[in-house]
């Protein structure tokens, strides 16, 4: 760690991982509720479990992104962070607001929560993923602006690199598009139209820039490949991401009452969205193959390569599966969507945050570059457990989705929703088992932070086994 | 014509790229004229379409070879533009044959 102020990232990373554990626990509850409908009812109804599962995901990823930015920006800008106290203050505000919101979801009925938080003054609640009370949303804006302030000023005052530039564009976009969470038109078509400006333009637009920037940073640090080469790739990838991702929003506009041309715009542009992800995969492996050093933190390199592969599969391939409008006509809102959502979020965003945590945490805990070999072995086990179980979750949900699409919408004698749900329950059981394995992997991940802390640090080996890692 | 030394190349005689440029301009005029005056020329629609598509392929190939400099490249990149031209052109041909029936 070169700069003292980088250490604020530690707080953010710890909170991120704690919330990650919470997210997975609620995911398991929900997964069980798919097959045992009244599990934990009425304490935690399905809709609440789902809300907590998705909201926690978004919040912990935001913590992860912020932590990554606080760690990465001083090192890139070659100066201390502006106002690290602000970063700490915002951390606590964000954490407390987040915890209070989740507690609100769990303790009172949603309508009551809306009433308590005076949603009627500026109604923004009740929309998927944007369920947060209006005051929480305002809090998010304050946190985001303060965050942008300290990151932005640090970048502007220090050395400017392509990595920080792309990161800054991504983070600014994240803040700007969130503002559409406050726009809640009466017209249901317009409402959905702009709702996607938050949801889609986050995950298939500006978040990808953040992903690209963090990945580039980790590759620069761990491979020793020339910055110029990596930055050039980053340019090409983000240009392609923006072209395909921005207009690709159209693949959400097929069935909500927008003009016909979106069928074409959405299909064609979103069909190209896998391209930047594919470039990212080629990019990551290329850089690691051309490496000039064997970084001792093999776990971090593994996560970085993992994210490049899994993002392509989850976001690229599984997204393409149901993105063309004639296909989506049948698959819209089935378990195919859930399959895609799981692998895409895990591959693109969970893994990149974990890669950054893996890279930065040892240094913030006083190591020179990496954890002890023992700790890394446990971490790599957790990588494989989580990744493989996520592949299975995705496959089971895909199976469920294909069957559901056929039985419910495509066959000559379509069957009603609930009957179909019964027929595909085997897939839900299998998914739940894979989910338990994922939790074991996650527990192992947490354990890896406490294992071998007194062992000597892993050292850089001369050209043998980084590839086999 | 006397041989010109390498150093004076481009000054003594017209550059290859200029020849290609003039050819491209002429081919463009042909395409435009075929579209504009086909009422008088009277080519069947399919013949007209395939002719201008063929001209476009030729133009694209020339741009790839001479303007993008691919003729001095070896390996798969040598053919990237030509192969790309074949892809939409064959699909377009297929679609027009379908429409003609």
């Amino acid at each position, binding site marked *: 760690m070169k700069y003292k102020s980088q250490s604020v990232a530690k707080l953010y990373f710890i909170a991120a991982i704690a919330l990650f554990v919470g997210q997975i626990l609620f995911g398991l509850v929900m997964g069980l509720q798919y097959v045992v409908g009244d599990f934990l009812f009425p304490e935690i109804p399905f809709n609440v479990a789902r809300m907590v599962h998705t909201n926690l995901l978004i919040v912990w990823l935001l913590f992860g992104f912020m932590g990554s930015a606080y760690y990465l920006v001083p090192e890139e800008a070659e100066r201390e962070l502006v106002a690290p106290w602000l970063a700490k203050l915002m951390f606590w505000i964000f954490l407390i607001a987040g915890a209070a919101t989740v507690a609100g979801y769990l303790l009172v009925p949603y309508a009551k929560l809306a009433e308590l938080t005076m949603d009627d003054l500026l109604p923004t609640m009740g929309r998927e993923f944007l369920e947060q009370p209006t005051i929480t949303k305002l809090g998010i804006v304050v946190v985001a602006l303060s965050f942008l302030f300290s990151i932005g000023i640090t970048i502007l005052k220090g050395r400017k690199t392509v990595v920080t530039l792309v990161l800054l564009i991504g983070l600014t976009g994240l803040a700007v598009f969130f503002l559409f969470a406050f726009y809640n038109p009466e017209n249901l078509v317009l409402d959905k139209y702009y709702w996607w400006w938050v949801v889609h333009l986050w995950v298939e637009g500006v978040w990808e820039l953040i992903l690209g920037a963090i990945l580039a940073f980790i590759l620069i640090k761990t491979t020793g490949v020339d910055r110029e080469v990596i930055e050039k790739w980053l340019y090409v990838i983000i240009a392609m991401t923006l072209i395909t991702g921005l207009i690709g929003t159209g693949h959400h506009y097929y069935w909500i009452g927008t003009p016909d041309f979106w069928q074409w715009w959405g299909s064609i542009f979103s069909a190209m969205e896998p391209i930047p992800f594919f470039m990212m995969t080629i990019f990551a492996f290329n850089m690691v193959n051309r490496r000039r050093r064997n970084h001792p933190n093999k776990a971090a390199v593994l996560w970085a390569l993992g994210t490049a592969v899994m993002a392509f599969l989850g976001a690229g391939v599984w997204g393409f599966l149901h993105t063309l409008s004639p296909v989506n006509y049948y698959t819209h809102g089935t378990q195919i969507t859930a399959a895609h959502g799981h692998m895409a979020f895990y591959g693109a965003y969970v893994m990149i945050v974990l890669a950054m945590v893996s890279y930065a945490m040892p240094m913030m805990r006083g190591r020179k570059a990496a954890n002890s070999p023992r700790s890394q072995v446990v971490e790599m086990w957790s990588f494989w457990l989580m990744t493989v179980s996520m592949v299975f979750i995705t496959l089971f949900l895909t199976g469920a989705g294909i069957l559901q699409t056929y039985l419910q919408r495509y066959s000559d004698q379509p069957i009603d929703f609930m009957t179909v749900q019964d027929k595909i329950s085997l897939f839900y059981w299998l998914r739940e088992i894979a989910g338990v394995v994922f939790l074991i992997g996650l527990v192992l991940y947490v354990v890896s932070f406490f294992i071998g802390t007194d062992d000597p640090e892993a050292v850089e080996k001369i050209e043998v086994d980084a590839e086999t890692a | 014509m006397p041989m010109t030394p390498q150093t004076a190349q481009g000054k003594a005689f017209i550059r290859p*790229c200029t020849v290609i440029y003039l050819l491209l301009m002429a081919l463009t005029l042909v*395409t435009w004229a075929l579209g504009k005056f086909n009422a008088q020329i009277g080519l069947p629609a399919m013949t007209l379409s395939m002719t201008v598509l063929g001209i476009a392929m030729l133009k694209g190939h020339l741009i790839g070879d001479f303007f993008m400099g691919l003729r001095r490249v070896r390996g798969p990149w040598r053919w990237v533009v030509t192969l790309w031209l074949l892809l939409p052109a064959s699909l377009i041909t297929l*679609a027009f044959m379908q429409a003609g029936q």
Partner: protein
Amino acid sequence: MTDKLKQPPGDLAIWIFICAELSVFAVFFAAYAFTRAKHVELFNQYQQTLNTNYALINTLALITSSYFVVRAVAAIREGSQRGCARWLLAAIAMGALFLVVKSMEYQHHFSHGVTLSTNTFYMFYISLTFFHFMHVIMGMVILAAVALKARRGAYTADRHTGVETGASYWHMVDLVWIILFPLVYVMR
């Protein structure tokens, strides 16, 4: 001159980008053609409302600008930084001419109340040409950046990958229009 290069001129990354862009356009062209096959009469009827004279001027403008870019690359290979910048500016001017003519064409159609939702032909006509229009703007930005760097003396006869990179992108913009022009304006 006989030893051939392993990679096309310019940065390899731009070529991967070019391939990606070209495949998007290929899909768009095929979509146009196959949709047309289902609505031949509609497409033939509304194609008549397009002005091929504008399209001719635009095609000539783009080919000329591409030629200027070729000359810009030739100039920097001969070590002339000023010459390179001047040819690039000429190419950008041709790009600007394209934008002006295209805008006049749009103006004509829009003033007649044509929108993306008027019919399938206009939907494709506007989408395809507008998507290409944005590429012309992007290409001009790239050329302008290269021209500025060239004038500041950033390139030499031996090191000028940046010029070739920008040139390759610009030729791609030209290449796409070469197909778009007959497909949308002439073929019937």
